[in-house]
């Protein structure tokens, strides 16, 4: 159905970003926070009304905007698409984004650059909405790249900090590597389909050249691994914590990292046409879920634990997409947005209270001082750990059920193991932060105000109840809502069953939680052990994510920079230019002989030149 409303989802935050950027030095912090939140809130309202319009029409909303490019044999039309997948995403992006904006209006109120902050935050929401709304791959790529730029600007928000500058650079660079994959995918796509519109590409995917479709699928996956912090391009995510906490919440829950999952779901006809590419998605997801969870068990920074947990949970989503269970994958994206935003904002309240302290070895006993943070964080922990009836339980089990139903036993086992590890590291985190006695005295901080508490409370509520929309056998909102988008290209999304596998997952989670309580509870031995810094090589490897980042930075990065020095400082001045100067020197020596006859520099050279021309000329005309 034709609509004119969708574009407003983009225009509100874009205008907000522009107004805030220009007015950053003239508006009061309160007004800046209010305007920034209002812009995203307005987008959310439009997204809701678009949802209503979609349900009424029963057909995807489309809005043609303009012809982006047109020439002989090619045309790229730019339009917006409001189908179930994009509406699903938009509601989370703008809804959770709005809550985070409200939270940030208090959290960042003291920062001298609060105007710049909200301008960038609005721009982030704009870019993500563009990514999700585009009806063609060029628009998706533009949104994709601008999400990358927004993350660069926000990770590096405190750009005077060298660590923030380095983290921003790393995030953008890894994302560019992903983008190279997407650009090459688009190049292949155009060669095969002569179009970059979703409709044309997806309609033709099943009949297309199998090799090209597989290559496209794998190249898109490269892009997704960078954006969604999957193996092997995940190393930017833990460092991205250098940005202010609301940024982390926004990146991990609503924008940025979920873009890879979106791409896998959006481009599903490609993956359904190539079982090899689909299997690659599943394995990347499964292994990432495992690596993220394993590494998270050894982190000592509250935000790094959460960062690796995001990586791991995104791995679940990719795993779901990789077995074709898109509705389960997208359902997990939905619940994860709530509990991950909740956890990050909770971590922000803790850090706020402790004047920026993020090392969990120096925390403890905060439950008594921050009861609100305690209870809401606990809900987040229960939700991510998969405790029934919290949200993560239902969505995680949907994915694992589908994995098993599709016959991927190895991946299912990995998923079960990850469930146990997740419960372990989250309970460990919770125990170290909130339980026991304070490890160190931090002085009295102040507890957060209403603008921070209210969004957290809403997210806690959603983390508790949002799973209930898909109780197996009772409700199936995500499946019912999303399925038309997949049926549109003739794909029946598979689902898993319920029964003993759920019990196995639950048992794994319970075991993980119990182990963590034993080790890190108020009287646990792990607490003391953690404070003793010495560790085995294995522990060091885990704490440093297997040193993969070092391999990239010192290995590959060093190689590229080293090559550049060889080129720029060796080859260029001494060989290439040296050759030129050598020739020039030779000519000069010859010319010096002739120079007795001629005075001026230029004339001397000109003579030599035209002598050369004459010789060339003669040669030329004789052959």
């Amino acid at each position: 159905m034709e609509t004119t409303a969708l574009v407003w989802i983009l225009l509100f935050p874009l205008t907000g970003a522009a107004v805030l950027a220009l007015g950053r030095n003239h508006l009061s912090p309160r007004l800046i926070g209010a305007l920034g939140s209002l812009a995203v809130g307005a987008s959310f309202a439009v997204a809701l009304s678009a949802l209503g319009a979609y349900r009424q029409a029963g057909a995807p909303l489309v809005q043609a905007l303009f012809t982006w490019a047109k020439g002989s044999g090619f045309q790229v039309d730019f339009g917006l698409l409001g189908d179930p997948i994009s509406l699903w995403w938009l509601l989370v992006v703008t809804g959770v984004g709005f809550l985070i904006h409200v939270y940030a209006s208090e959290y960042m109120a003291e920062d001298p650059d609060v105007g710049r902050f909200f301008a960038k935050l609005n721009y982030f929401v704009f870019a993500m909405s563009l990514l999700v709304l585009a009806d063609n791959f060029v628009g998706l790529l533009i949104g994709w790249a601008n999400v990358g730029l927004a993350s660069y600007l926000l990770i590096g928000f405190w750009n005077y900090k060298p660590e923030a500058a380095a983290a921003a650079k790393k995030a953008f660079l890894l994302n560019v590597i992903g983008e190279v994959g997407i650009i090459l995918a688009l190049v292949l796509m155009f060669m095969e389909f002569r179009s970059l519109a979703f409709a044309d590409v997806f309609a033709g995917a099943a009949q297309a050249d199998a090799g090209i479709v597989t290559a496209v699928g794998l190249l898109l996956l490269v892009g997704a691994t960078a954006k969604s912090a999957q193996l092997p391009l995940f190393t930017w995510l833990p460092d991205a914590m250098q940005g202010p906490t609301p940024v982390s919440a926004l990146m991990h829950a609503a924008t940025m990292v979920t873009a890879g999952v979106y791409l896998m779901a959006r481009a599903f006809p490609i993956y359904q046409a190539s079982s090899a590419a689909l299997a690659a998605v599943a394995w990347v997801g499964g292994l990432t879920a495992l690596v993220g969870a394993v590494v998270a068990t050894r982190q000592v920074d509250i935000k790094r634990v959460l960062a690796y947990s995001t990586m791991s949970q995104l791995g679940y989503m990719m795993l779901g997409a990789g077995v074709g269970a898109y509705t389960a994958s997208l359902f997990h994206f939905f619940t994860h947005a709530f509990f991950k935003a909740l956890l990050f904002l909770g971590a922000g309240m803790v850090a706020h209270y402790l004047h920026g302290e993020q090392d969990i070895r120096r925390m403890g006993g905060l439950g008594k001082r921050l009861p609100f943070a305690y209870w809401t964080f606990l809900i987040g922990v229960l939700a991510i750990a998969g405790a029934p009836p919290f949200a993560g339980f239902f969505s995680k089990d949907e994915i694992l059920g589908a994995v098993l139903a599709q016959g991927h036993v190895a991946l299912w086992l990995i998923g079960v193991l990850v469930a146990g590890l997740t419960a372990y590291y989250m309970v460990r985190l919770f125990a170290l932060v909130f339980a026991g006695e304070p490890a160190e005295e931090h002085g009295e901080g102040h507890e957060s105000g209403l603008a921070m508490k209210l969004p957290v409370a809403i997210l806690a509520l959603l983390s508790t109840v949002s799973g209930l929309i898909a109780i197996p056998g009772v409700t199936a909102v995500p499946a019912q809502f999303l399925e038309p988008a997949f049926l549109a290209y003739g794909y029946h999304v598979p689902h898993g069953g319920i029964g003993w596998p759920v019990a196995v997952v639950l048992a794994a989670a319970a075991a993980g939680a119990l182990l963590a309580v034993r080790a890190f509870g108020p009287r646990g031995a792990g607490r003391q052990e953690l404070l003793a810094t010495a560790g085995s090589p294995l522990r060091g490897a885990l704490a440093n994510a297997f040193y993969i980042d070092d391999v990239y930075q010192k290995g590959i990065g060093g190689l590229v920079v080293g090559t550049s020095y060889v080129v720029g400082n060796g080859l260029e001045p001494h060989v290439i230019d040296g050759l030129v100067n050598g020739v020039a020197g030779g000519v000069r020596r010859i010319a010096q002989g002739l120079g007795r006859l001629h005075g001026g520099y230029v004339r001397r050279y000109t003579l030599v030149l035209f002598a050369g021309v004459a010789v060339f000329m003669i040669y030329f005309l004789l052959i």
Partner: protein
Amino acid sequence: MTLTFIVFLPLLGALVSLFLPKENHDIHRKWALIVSLVALAVVLGMWGPFDAGNPGIQFEQRANWIPSIGVSYHVGVDGISYPMLIITGLVSVLAILASWNIDHRQKEFFAWMLVLQTAMYGVFVALDYILFFLFWELLLVPMYFIIGIWGGPKREYAAIKFFIYTLVGSAIMLVGILATYLKAGLGTFDIVTIAQQANFDPRFQFWAFLAFFIGFAVKVPMWPFHTWLPDAHVEAPTGGSMLLAGILLKTGTYGFFRIAFPTFPEGADAFKWLMALLSVISIIYGALAAMAQRDLKKMVAYSSVSHMGFVTLGLAAAAGAVAQAKGVGDATVIGQLLANGSMALNGAMYVMISHGLISPLLFFLVGSVLYDRAHTRMMDEMGGYFSKIPVAGTILAFAAFANLGLPGLSGFVGEFFTFVGSFPAFRTLVIIAALGLAVTAGYHLWMMQRVLMGEGKKEESFPDINGRELAVSVPLMVLIVLLGVYPALALSILDPAVSQLMLKLGGM
């Protein structure tokens, strides 16, 4: 007449300025600005009457000049040259604004800037070989003096290197011109007539293309003929660097579009692999060399080598597409292959336009805005400019992201079309070039980390960007965004002309 007016107005302005009082410094810059603005206004005024759908030559004017040997004064524009005229007019105006505070020999400086404009406009409108060659050579003279008199410490070395290098290139090109004239046997030096009517055998086309190739490749510059560029760009005063990077490099690639490809399609076919290879080497080598620089201006200079590689890659791919189409029976497939070629050429032209906006912006920021404040070009002596000069810092970041090809800005569009159009012909090379994007992003990000972020020197404090500097930057920024968001605007002018060139290459 319109084109003649545009071409000679700046020269006339330069002559008039000779009679203006030498002591009154203000009058020279104002006069140069007014003259350039009038020329730009006339160029922009052509937008309405210019028929975008017509692939042929428009605003044509022809007069006999030396009839005995067939030299004529023949000028005109098509969809390939008109965008270059717009960029020339715009960057000329901005370069004069950027040179507002030149501190010695103002009268001469602005006179040379005006002469340079005549030469640039002339190259893009000339349709006669002799006329083209005259303007081509005329480019050198003002630029030689601009670098040699108002340049940096190594200005004389740089100016002479620039002069000799391009003169060698154009001398070889002159041989090509004369040989083409004689071999064609049409008794005319007309570029269009020769391209349409002459019937050159492949062997001659090989040699003639090579002669033009060398002349143009030096100007572009293609690796390994590029070493004049970093010296010239770095030593040139800001206004000179802006025009050098923004316009003069494009005269080289423009020569391929206007002369070498349409006149010697078989020659292009013979050299397509070499050209594609050198292009990709330029892209990667330029990016790596840029990464190694400490000198910010030199980094930008090497990035030009890298970016111009996309233009020549697109050109080579057009020849590659024609080669692929030969011997194919299926008309649909032929159509698609030729469409690939058109797309590559559109991409190449788009890179020329986009780089014609981005590189002047970068050179202005680096050579003037930053240098006037920090008095250094060394990146490790800078730092923290996001905090110290937030607006100028943000504009530099904008220019850097545009230059690294951020989708949504103009730099991306041309590179993307070049990739899409070139891939079918040169798969491996395009993949390597695409990997170069990561290197390009790398050195820009590293630059921003060193220049804009961090704390920098504690005691430093500068005023942020001023009104004149904004007046130079903002028009470029607006166009970079506009051409990134709405490429159809430029493509509507480029595509008809480029597609006609493609048909000519395909022998249709």
